């Protein structure tokens, strides 16, 4: 009897567009700084990275119920990934701003050159904090024991790959629009393939896990957000850009746009289909029909007697 109680599944209603936007911006922005460093891209991408991270921070402030005291968000570094993330964002903004500032005429009084020790230290601080910003949103979500679909390292992996692809998308847009940066990277097609494989494995494992995780996969692929998932994430975000990278290397802007749309919708879909473990919690094996009520056998006997009386009266 407990099974029907335990079958009640409810989707989380707390987070939607705003948090998806924050996940998208923080992942893309932080990874853009890492991509800038790894591939030695023009400095415009580092500036873009800083801008995107600041924008992500503003979006997160809008999500808060009491944004006026957001500064308190770094108070629990020992346990809270949100705290650690907020601190990483603050460090990244400060260090990358200082690292990039001397290039602007208004800040030319800052004396450190690109090769100086101060610049190197600032650069490394920015790199490490960008790495942390890339990792923490996925870990933050995967810590939730209440939502099995998120409570897996596969989500962290998928978020990191999506962040990397988002950063590459910005570089592709830059290559097309600003005429700066690399054209399509040789590794991009492999990362896209990895994204498809990881997303597929993630969904397959969640489907096999059953319960709330399976319900999340069902909502993702057949209900609720299935159109956003199949058209936005799979077709626009995975298949089309992969085909473009392989077959039409000149379409950098379109490839970049597709990846950005797919990356954003991936976060949105994952958030929207977060299904809680059933809240009406009854341990398996508890039979409510036995709770101080007349047993079914007694009731059957009573009804049989009533039926016999009715038969006699007739």
């Amino acid at each position, binding site marked *: *009897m407990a099974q*029907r*109680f335990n079958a009640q599944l*409810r989707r*989380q209603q*707390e*987070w939607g567009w705003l948090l998806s936007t924050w996940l998208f911006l923080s992942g893309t922005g932080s990874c853009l700084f890492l991509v800038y460093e790894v591939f030695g891209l023009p400095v415009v991408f580092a500036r873009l990275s800083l801008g995107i991270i600041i924008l992500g921070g503003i979006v997160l402030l809008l*999500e*808060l*119920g*009491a*944004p006026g*005291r*957001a500064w*308190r*968000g*770094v*108070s*629990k570094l020992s*346990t*809270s*990934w*949100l*705290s650690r993330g*907020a601190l990483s964002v603050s460090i990244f903004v400060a260090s990358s701003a200082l690292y990039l500032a001397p290039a602007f005429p208004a800040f030319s009084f800052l004396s450190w050159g690109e090769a100086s020790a101060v610049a190197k230290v600032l650069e490394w601080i920015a790199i490490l904090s960008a790495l942390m910003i890339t990792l923490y949103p996925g870990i*933050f979500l995967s*810590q*939730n*024991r*209440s*939502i099995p679909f998120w409570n897996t390292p596969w989500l962290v992996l998928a978020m990191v790959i999506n962040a990397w692809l988002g950063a590459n998308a910005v570089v592709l847009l830059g290559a097309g629009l600003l005429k700066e940066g690399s054209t399509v990277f040789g590794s991009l097609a492999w990362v896209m393939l990895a994204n498809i494989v990881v997303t597929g494995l993630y969904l397959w494992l969640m489907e096999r896990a059953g319960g709330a995780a399976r319900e999340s996969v069902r909502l993702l692929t057949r209900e609720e957000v299935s159109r956003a998932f199949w058209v936005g994430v799979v077709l626009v975000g995975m298949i089309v850009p992969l085909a473009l990278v392989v077959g039409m290397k000149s379409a950098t802007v379109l490839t970049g746009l597709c990846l950005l749309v797919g990356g954003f919708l991936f976060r949105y879909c994952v958030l929207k289909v*977060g299904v*809680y*473990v059933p*809240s*009406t*919690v*009854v*341990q398996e094996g*508890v039979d*409510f*029909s036995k*709770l*101080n*009520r007349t047993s*079914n056998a007694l*009731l*059957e006997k009573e*009804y049989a007697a009533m039926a016999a009386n009715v038969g006699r009266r007739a």
Partner: protein
Amino acid sequence: MRTTGKSGNGSGVRWGVTVDLKRCVGCQSCTLSCKAENGTPPGVFWTWVVEKEEGTYPFAYTMYMPMRCNHCNDPACVPVCPTGASHQREQDNLVLVDQELCIGCHSCVVACPYQVRYIPESDRGYYGDKKTPYEEVKYKGWEAGTTQKCNLCAPRIDRGLKPACVQACPTRALSFGDLNDPESDIVKQIDQRKHFQPRVELGTDPNVYYLT
């Protein structure tokens, strides 16, 4: 009343509630008394009774199951809080929210497997912007945009009283006491009766026991 000791570690007070599912008749007295005591916003109920029809005619019956914060020993909602607003009280195990610290990030609301945390968007009362005298008084106890939840009537407990829901239960389906006190009624009930803790497999170690 003892007020020392660390929460949930077996050495101090560990407040708990037992819910006797054989006694609960689904009257919602606990729901209403909680509402009256804490003045929660429209649509928000810190405790409520789930009602479900089971079986088939002629052997159909209704099941009742009071739901509430479980004031867990290892709560999922506390470590995710970035400000320390969600915390376990030092002198016992009560999981409380300091609304002056809460930034309304929703992390704890999502983290709680029992879905018993709420963030009201506004402080509008039941009759619109103009609050009733009762709402004027009670709504000062919480802040819109921040998390609120069952505090097991901590102010009442501190005055030596039982939580309002326990006090109001006409069938005495709800019992309250110190789970660390072997002489307390609820420990004896738990020893004598079949029972379960909700979603114990998630590792939260809830302090609400359902007696079956």
